[in-house]
């Protein structure tokens, strides 16, 4: 008997969170992400885990941070308008270096936008939504099996790097029912957190580039966690030398390890003369388009980014040594195309296929762009 079963994308997120050991969810209902909360409201209490529906998305993320600091593995799920509200506490989580996972099932924006239609327009908000310089990790699965693996990876990365991780998802993929073989428990790789040995309360003390151990409340020492810039004890400070060190500590813990964080998939790239750069549902259409175009003799390949931030700069620059044409396909008015432009040399020709009206690209539309661009 096949082990494959049919699940909705949102349910796969919830199942992966359970498998990853997530034991606290706080959220606020919003289409098209609500199934994640609904599923966990049913399943978490069965396992003695915590679920709470809060009064808004700001409080949902606040509760998640409080629980994370109390030793829980936490998750919240939302969509564009809720993600906007979460930016305030996302900043606090970055500043205080708290592991948590936020799922943003994107929908058409700005504002209330097109609630039940897909969009890929929160790419930059995911990177720069909260104020101030900050590091962030953003993952973006496209296929059902990736939804599971990337959700687990989001928890692992958040705990390893003491940082919030955002999982972006397309409305169509979150709402679609697809068949998937859920991995066996023994095949799921879960990061085991380092146990921190506390000496003189220097909870943030480490060298630049080191990934930190985790510190929680109620562990027998009176720690202070502060959204103000703080010293190695977590106590507020405005000392320029300390502020400088802390800024670098936070940024470098991600960028120092970006080779470990950045993940992508490549299709038909070996002899490709043209590359499509895409992600999420657009990458799925693009993969079909590449197959069609290949049948017609066009040497085109697909670079599917699974990690959006940090941006896969090194990998792309390596490809641009051979490939001199790049077509960025994204469901927005042009966001990641600027990143592609930034990392590509002048001799690489750039083109885009963009749309933000709630309708995903068909493979044929992408084939047409490939043909046009290959002339």
């Amino acid at each position: 008997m096949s082990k494959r079963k049919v699940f909705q994308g949102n349910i796969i997120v919830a199942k992966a969170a359970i498998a990853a050991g997530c034991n606290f969810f706080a959220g606020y209902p919003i289409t098209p992400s609500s199934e994640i909360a609904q599923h966990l409201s049913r399943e978490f209490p069965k396992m003695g885990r915590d679920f709470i529906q809060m009064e808004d998305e700001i409080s949902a993320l606040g509760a998640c941070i409080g629980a994370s600091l109390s030793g829980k593995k936490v998750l919240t799920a939302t969509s564009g308008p809720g993600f906007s509200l979460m930016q305030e506490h996302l900043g606090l989580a970055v500043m205080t270096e708290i592991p948590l996972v936020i799922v943003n099932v994107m929908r058409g924006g700005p504002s209330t936008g097109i609630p039940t239609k897909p969009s890929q327009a929160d790419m930059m908000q995911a990177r720069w939504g909260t104020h101030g310089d900050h590091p962030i990790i953003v993952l973006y699965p496209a296929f059902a099996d990736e939804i599971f693996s990337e959700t687990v990876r989001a928890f692992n990365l958040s705990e390893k790097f003491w940082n919030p991780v955002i999982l972006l998802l397309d409305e169509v993929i979150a709402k679609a029912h697809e068949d998937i073989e859920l991995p066996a428990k023994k095949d799921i790789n879960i990061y085991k957190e380092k146990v921190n040995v506390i000496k003189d309360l220097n909870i943030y003390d480490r060298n630049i580039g080191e990934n930190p151990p985790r510190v929680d409340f109620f562990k027998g020492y009176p720690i202070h966690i502060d959204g103000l810039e703080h010293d190695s004890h977590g106590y507020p400070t405005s000392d320029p030398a300390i502020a400088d060190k802390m800024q670098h500590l936070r940024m470098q813990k991600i960028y120092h390890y970006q080779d470990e964080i950045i993940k992508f998939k490549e299709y038909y790239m070996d002899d490709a003369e043209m590359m499509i750069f895409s992600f999420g549902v657009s990458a799925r259409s693009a993969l079909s388009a590449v197959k069609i175009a290949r049948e017609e003799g066009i040497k085109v390949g697909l670079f599917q980014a699974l990690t959006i931030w940090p941006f896969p700069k090194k990998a792309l620059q390596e490809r641009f040594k051979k490939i001199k044409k790049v077509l960025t396909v994204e469901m927005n008015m042009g966001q990641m195309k600027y990143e592609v432009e930034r990392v590509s040399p002048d001799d690489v020709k750039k083109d885009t296929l963009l749309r933000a009206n709630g309708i995903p690209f068909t493979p044929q539309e992408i084939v047409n762009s490939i043909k046009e661009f290959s002339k």
Partner: protein
Amino acid sequence: MNKYEKYIRYQTFPTPWCPGCGDGVVLKAIAMAFSDLDLDPNDIIVIAGIGCSGRMPTFFNTNTLHTTHGRALTFATGVKLARPEKMVVVISGDGDAMAIGGNHLIHAARRNIGIKMILINNGVYGMTGGQVSPLTPQKFITETTPYGNIEPKFHPAELMIAARATFVARETVNRTVQLKEVIKKSLQHNGFSVVEAISNCHINLGRKNKMKNPVNMTKWIASRTVTKEQYEKLAPEDRAHKYPVGILQEDTARYEYSELYHKHIIPAAKEAAKKEAAARNNKK
């Protein structure tokens, strides 16, 4: 060393508060309440938002968390649900709790989640330099009401009573012993509690309203507060601008939220899981 000083984190001193500020009184009253109850500092967490009151957790030698403006209760909700056995204390100011954080406050009261809130009411945004708050009295001059405040104010204790908070009290920084006692009682309450501590901001509110030193201002506070018993004896027309102090509402019948979650939801879900498993086995 006094017994309560074990709860004070001296290495983070000095405080950012102005000389004569009531916040120091509240800090000491809370530490003394901890001490009277002989709580283990490791079992306490003090959480605050932004403002002069927001800085207070820094000075407690317990687990402490300084969060965002008005939203300390949301973090506290996460902590309490995750660790129901811990003493979760939230300190807030009037701008913090009554303006930007008003929504979180009414919902915490509605849920009856076991958070102990101390709401320091000094009637002004002190940290930002003295702008009007939702608790500034009418006609008062502030940095953003240069011609006098035309907005009526909230009465936080009465608002909390209306939101069915299960423990509501009011005290003032003039009455330190009573303040400590009422905080102590609130810490012992099983459910959401709020203690409104009326305090003085002579620098950023008093100075512009003919009360430029702490003595003028605490006298003004004293002139406006009466005990609950005295208040009840007052004729309705004499009650305007008088605020009763003491415990104003106490309801011990309602379940605390995290207790209810663990005593009701988790067993109910586990029962459902058993039935589902049995149904699956029957199919096979």
